[in-house]
């Protein structure tokens, strides 16, 4: 049978690099059941061994406070891997061993991969590997994960450990007289009662009771409430005793003693230092510049702008390829499929839908590559460090800046990769607040809507109005985040106890794997849902079709036009020539007008049209008529659809979102429109429900459809409230003569 090896260790210890080195391309990414924590699995073929390797989330400890830590320890206890490779950063031994000691207390079969031996050597840190192995009572293998040095020996040691029948007993550390006494009492009781037996060592359960571990206490309560209460009583008694005699609590003392235990090991000559240890490392020198009070923000602005530029400019070419391909496919269907519903569904539903899904792929690919580069090099942690003070005010995290920028914090981004970029946030509340507020940014698809309205009503102040729109969306998003964090996602800020990892040159292979697996997940998971919704939206804008007699009415108009026209023009039109005489051109324009009127009637008659019309009573409060309503409904498919749908609703033939001058002129001349209505619509467009691709991604990233639905309802309600306020106040004051 294939044996499982778990890879565990601190974040930034090179765990993922080792995982890539061990498994190569033979890996896949999924999720741990029921949670959004990534689970990476792969197969290692080395020395004739075939091992299943599971990459556990990187953690510093094994508490119940974070999802990653619970997931890691649950995996060790429930799946019982044949062995655990604990990757330990040699240049940072003391803190890394803190996790190792906790694995030993849990009694899992363990070996240590001592990584970054080269870095430690450079820093003048010499580690006596044999002594460490002897003291820890387990194999210790020096490796350099970046270049694969020591990999063979590591796999051989892990395989050897799997073949060893007897497992070493859990480590017993002394936590001082008071705690040891309580532990002994509890351990005796637990063993006697067989409490949570089979899963956890008795002393470990006792320790967790003293640490007030929420998960273990709940498990205990569910398994035997009376006995659990007994244990809790012992724990409370000890806590009270420590509080009165030493003004401390058991949890703090336990940590102190664990570190004390590690220090006592270190003092036995495991580590020796050469040269001046207080001299600055390269990384510290870089930080002196990069996080400098004046240069830091400037460099950061440059990097953020660079990432933005990289994501959206360089991806234009492949985005163009995808668009061209689907355009070609659409033309092919247009030419070869018989007219009718099936053709319409294939083109507007399936091809546009799949094209829509895949059109985001280059963006996501580029974004993840850029983010992975910043993350793996260590720079992203510095960004969080520098901006935390600002974002904390709004209940967010310093790392929230990347998702905001990518979503359109610099106008023209996209919320889909933006939502996905929120993965770099490790604090759950701040992450959720970020996910829910990034769609307020001005993505590239909203820009044609703004451009249309600005050209029609604020032509003289184009640039300043566009800038104002960007400012409004930032203020709105940050205030909404503040609102969410003090209501629905309330709770103290997640502690900002964060490591600033040393700067490292990322491995190209690591970057590619990282980028590809996340992009593939988007295609696989979001793709199918997006296609389904795309077809659904097409159906809403198509059904029910116009009744026969109205279709016949439009046909009659066409025939009448043709009949009244000179025969020569009709004949010329039939040739489908490029150059037409003035007379024929006029004929064609009249026919197109009928087509446009038919399209408008069909749209109004469709389900979406009926919804739009029936909402007119309410939407009037914000100054929107049924045409705007339908356009906004269409915007749920993709924001730029607002423009083309508005075009159809004003019975204009095909409006290209890039070329809106004619529609602009029509709106400007329309008495139902004025600058106040335009502002109302601009505000609504900034804040209302994100496009459904974003909604799907929010649901995926937050792990719940509930939050996807929330973003649609909350955003639309907020947008409507703002639009109504502005429109009503504006009308009252009569400023724009509304």
């Amino acid at each position, binding site marked *: 049978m294939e044996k499982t090896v778990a890879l565990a260790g601190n974040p930034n210890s090179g765990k993922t690099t080792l995982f890539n080195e061990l498994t190569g391309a033979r890996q896949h990414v999924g999720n741990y059941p029921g949670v959004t924590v990534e689970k990476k699995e792969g197969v290692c073929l080395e020395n004739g061994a075939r091992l299943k390797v599971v990459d556990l989330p990187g953690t510093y400890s094994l508490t119940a*406070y974070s999802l990653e830590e619970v997931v890691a320890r649950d995996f060790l206890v429930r799946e019982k891997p044949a062995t655990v490779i604990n990757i330990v950063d040699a240049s*940072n031994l003391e803190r890394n061993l*803190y996790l190792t000691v906790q694995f030993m207390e849990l009694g899992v079969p363990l070996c240590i991969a001592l990584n970054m031996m080269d870095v430690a050597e450079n820093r003048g840190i010499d580690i006596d590997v044999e002594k460490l192995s002897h003291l820890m009572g387990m194999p210790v293998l020096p490796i350099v994960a970046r270049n694969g040095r020591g990999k063979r020996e590591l796999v051989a040691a892990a395989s050897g450990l799997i073949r060893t029948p007897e497992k070493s007993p859990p480590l017993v550390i002394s936590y001082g007289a008071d705690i040891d006494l309580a532990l002994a009492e509890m351990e005796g009781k637990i063993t006697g009662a067989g409490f949570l037996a089979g899963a956890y060592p008795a002393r470990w359960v006792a320790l967790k009771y003293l640490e007030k571990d929420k998960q273990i206490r709940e498990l205990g309560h569910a398994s035997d409430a009376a006995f659990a209460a007994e244990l809790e009583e012992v724990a409370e008694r000890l806590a009270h005793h420590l509080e009165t005699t030493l003004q401390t609590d058991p*949890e703090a003392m336990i*940590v*102190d003693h664990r*570190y004390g235990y590690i220090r006592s090991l270190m003092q036995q000559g495991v580590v020796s230092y050469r040269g001046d240890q207080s001299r600055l490392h390269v990384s510290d020198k870089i930080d002196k510049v990069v996080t400098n009070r004046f240069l830091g923000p400037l460099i950061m602005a440059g990097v953020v702008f660079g990432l933005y530029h990289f994501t959206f400019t360089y991806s234009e070419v492949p985005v163009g390829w995808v668009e061209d391909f689907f355009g070609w496919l659409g033309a092919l269907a247009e030419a070869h499929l018989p007219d009718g519903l099936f053709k319409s569904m294939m083109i507007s539903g399936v091809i546009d839908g799949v094209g829509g899904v895949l059109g985001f792929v280059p963006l996501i690919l580029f974004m993840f590559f850029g983010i992975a580069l910043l993350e793996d090099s260590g720079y992203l942690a510095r960004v969080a460090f520098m901006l*935390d*003070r600002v974002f904390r005010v709004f209940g967010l995290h310093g790392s929230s800046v990347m998702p905001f920028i990518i979503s359109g914090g610099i106008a023209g981004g996209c919320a889909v990769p933006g939502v996905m970029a929120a993965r770099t946030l490790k604090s759950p509340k701040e992450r959720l607040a970020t996910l829910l507020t990034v769609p307020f940014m001005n993505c590239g698809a909203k820009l044609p809507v703004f451009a249309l309205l600005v050209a029609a009503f604020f032509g003289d102040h184009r640039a300043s109005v566009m800038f104002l729109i960007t400012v409004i969306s930032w203020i709105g998003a940050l205030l909404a985040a503040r609102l969410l964090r003090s209501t629905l996602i309330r709770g103290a800020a997640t502690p900002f106890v964060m*490591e600033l990892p040393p700067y490292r040159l990322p491995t190209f292979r690591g970057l590619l794997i990282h980028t590809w697996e996340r992009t593939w997940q988007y295609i696989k998971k979001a793709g199918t849902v997006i296609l389904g919704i795309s077809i659904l939206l097409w159906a809403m804008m198509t059904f029910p079709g116009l009744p026969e007699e109205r279709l016949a009415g439009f046909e009659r108009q066409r025939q009448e036009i043709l009949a009244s026209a000179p025969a020569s023009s009709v004949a010329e039109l039939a040739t489908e020539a490029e150059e037409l005489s003035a007379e024929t051109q006029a004929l064609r324009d009249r026919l197109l007008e009928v087509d446009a009127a038919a399209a408008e009637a069909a749209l109004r008659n469709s389900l979406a049209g009926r919804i739009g019309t029936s909402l007119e009573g309410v939407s009037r409060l914000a100054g929107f008529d049924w045409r705007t309503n339908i356009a906004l409904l269409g915007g749920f498919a993709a924001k730029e659809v607002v423009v083309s749908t508005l075009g159809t609703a004003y019975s204009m033939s095909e409006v290209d979102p890039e070329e809106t001058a004619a529609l602009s002129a029509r709106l400007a001349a329309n008495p139902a429109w004025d600058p106040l209505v335009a502002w109302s619509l601009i505000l609504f467009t900034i804040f209302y429900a994100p496009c459904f691709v974003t909604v799907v991604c929010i649901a995926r990233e937050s792990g719940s459809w509930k939050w996807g639905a929330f973003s649609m309802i909350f955003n639309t309600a907020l947008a409507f409230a703002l639009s109504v306020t502005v429109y009503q106040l504006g009308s009252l004051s009569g400023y724009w003569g509304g």
Partner: protein
Amino acid sequence: MAIINMRKMAVDQAGTIVDIKVGGELGRRIRDMGLVPGTRVKVQGRAPLNDPVALRLMGFTLTLRNNEADHIDVEVEG
């Protein structure tokens, strides 16, 4: 040698932690990262807006917000 609050430490000032006066999740996070009594720390730098603070301990760099550093007392050197 004086015992002062970590927030009051100047950049490049070093000292040894003597007490951490917070429990619960925050206390645990702080201690798990090696900030326990007896650990030597040096203030490596501060963010442009003076908060958070970057600390050097046991060969790595850790960041803390000022209101988190408030819970830590340090016996400073020199």
